[in-house]
């Protein structure tokens, strides 16, 4: 189980303190599918990066499976079974898709590297030896990032806006990827998303706005907080 206790995150904004997250407390049970949603700039991505260890909270504690991981490095958290798919995947000159897939899957690679690519709708033959460099489009990079993250098979996996940069044609496939993940009960999954179809497959939703948790609950409890089809938050 992942527990966030009174997490605050303050950054320097031209000499002034800016609150990105204010006293956020959450409990996320094992083997559930969570979607964190809410308006842009509300603190969702910062929260995800704090869980992965990329950002360090100004105050508060993160407890994972009973261990206080607040001061642990990104590496140690990764080794404990936390996976993170970046919203904007990183490019590497010289490293190939295969290099990162093999690193992610580790020695006990359950499926072949090609299977992970097929899962995200990429023809393995065309991509496996490609460099993860500027020759790949944003959408291709994004799908490779998701494949790499799935290949890790971690107990807690965070996807930061996986739909961003994915074309409409591929979007249905992406939903299927997450539906399959859910069926396989691959540990807990946290997805930061604005997409209704992703929200629809969540066990629980967490609505974050202005750096605060507005509400954590089921879709039926959270969705009425949005008006119409837009994601305008009543609490803003």
């Amino acid at each position, binding site marked *: 189980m992942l527990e966030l206790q009174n997490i605050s995150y303050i950054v320097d904004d031209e000499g002034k303190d800016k609150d990105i997250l204010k006293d956020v407390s959450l409990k996320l049970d094992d083997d559930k599918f969570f979607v964190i949603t809410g308006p842009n700039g509300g603190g969702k991505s910062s929260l995800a990066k704090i869980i992965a260890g*990329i950002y360090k909270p100004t105050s508060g504690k993160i407890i994972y499976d009973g261990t206080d991981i607040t001061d642990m490095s*990104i590496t140690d958290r990764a080794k404990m079974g936390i996976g993170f798919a970046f919203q904007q995947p*990183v490019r*590497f*000159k*010289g490293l190939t898709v295969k290099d990162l897939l093999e*690193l*992610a899957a580790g020695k006990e690679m359950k499926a072949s590297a090609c299977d992970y690519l097929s899962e995200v709708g990429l023809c393995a033959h065309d991509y496996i030896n490609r460099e993860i460099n500027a020759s790949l489009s944003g959408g291709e990079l994004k799908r490779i990032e998701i494949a790499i993250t799935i290949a890790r098979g971690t107990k807690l996996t965070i996807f930061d806006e996986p739909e961003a940069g994915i074309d409409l044609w591929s979007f249905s496939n992406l939903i299927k990827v997450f539906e399959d993940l859910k069926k396989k009960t691959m540990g807990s999954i946290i997805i930061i998303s604005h997409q209704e179809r992703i929200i629809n497959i969540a066990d629980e939703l967490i609505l974050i706005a202005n750096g605060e948790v507005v509400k954590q609950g089921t879709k039926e409890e959270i969705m009425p907080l949005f008006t119409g089809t837009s994601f305008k938050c009543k609490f803003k």
Partner: protein
Amino acid sequence: MDKIQENLLAEIAGLHEIPTGAYNIRANGEGAGRRSTEHIEITTKQDKPGIDIHIADNTVRESVHIPVIISETGLTESVYNDFFIGKNCDVTIIAGCGIHNCGTQKSEHDGIHTFFVGENSKVRYVEKHYGEGDGNGEIVLNPQTIVHLAAGSYLEMDTVQIKGVDSTIRTTVADVADNATLIISEKIMTHGKQHAETDFTVDLNGEGSSTNVISRSVARDDSTQLFKSNIRGNNKCAGHSECDAIIMDNGQVGAVPKVEANCVDASLIHEAAIGKIAGEQIIKLMSLGLTEEEAEEMIVNGFLK
């Protein structure tokens, strides 16, 4: 050949046994083995140290290995190797120099390679430099490559210097005729107090001629590097040079790319990017379970792969 020499051969040429095809092995300033073939003839120069390699017209899918190894300390030599490649050939030439210096004196090998590539021939030239040794003697390699490309010919030159060379100045001069292409790809990693300099001058003389000069390098510790390139477009041609360098610790890299268009139809581009490893690359690999040091290592190895 002793164990040290065998190891040097494996490092620079990937050779664990006598190669197939033509070869000439030079060890400590002397010939240590040679084989000519039906289409490739290797002869000793009479006027200065070195060899002439004559490759007959229409020789295809053949290779020549000409490794040089030095395991004696204090040996300094300049060697002239000239390649005369006929028309319509498709050959691979594997050169390289490995030095093991366990003494206190400087060991230096300066290889001057001249290529005369015949019309419509295709040549892949691979050169690897490697130094090792537990002494304080300096290891110096100053290769010079002179390339004359006839009409329609193609030469691809891959050079690698990853380890152990204290000082190197690489000079490459080329002239490229009609519809001929020269591709140069170099990979360098320096560490300690090493210094590496590369200087490429390419004259695109022919109509439709082209070149692509790509340098990827990593400078670690207190090492220094300088990349110079000058592409002169003297006809309707296309030229591109790219210097991409990672600096670590106190490493320093300078890049002086120059392009000179002497014809209105010349199209020339140069790019240079020098910087430390992007923080987000390290973070990504750490999120896959590597430590910061392991992440750096993987990024550097991939960059120079």
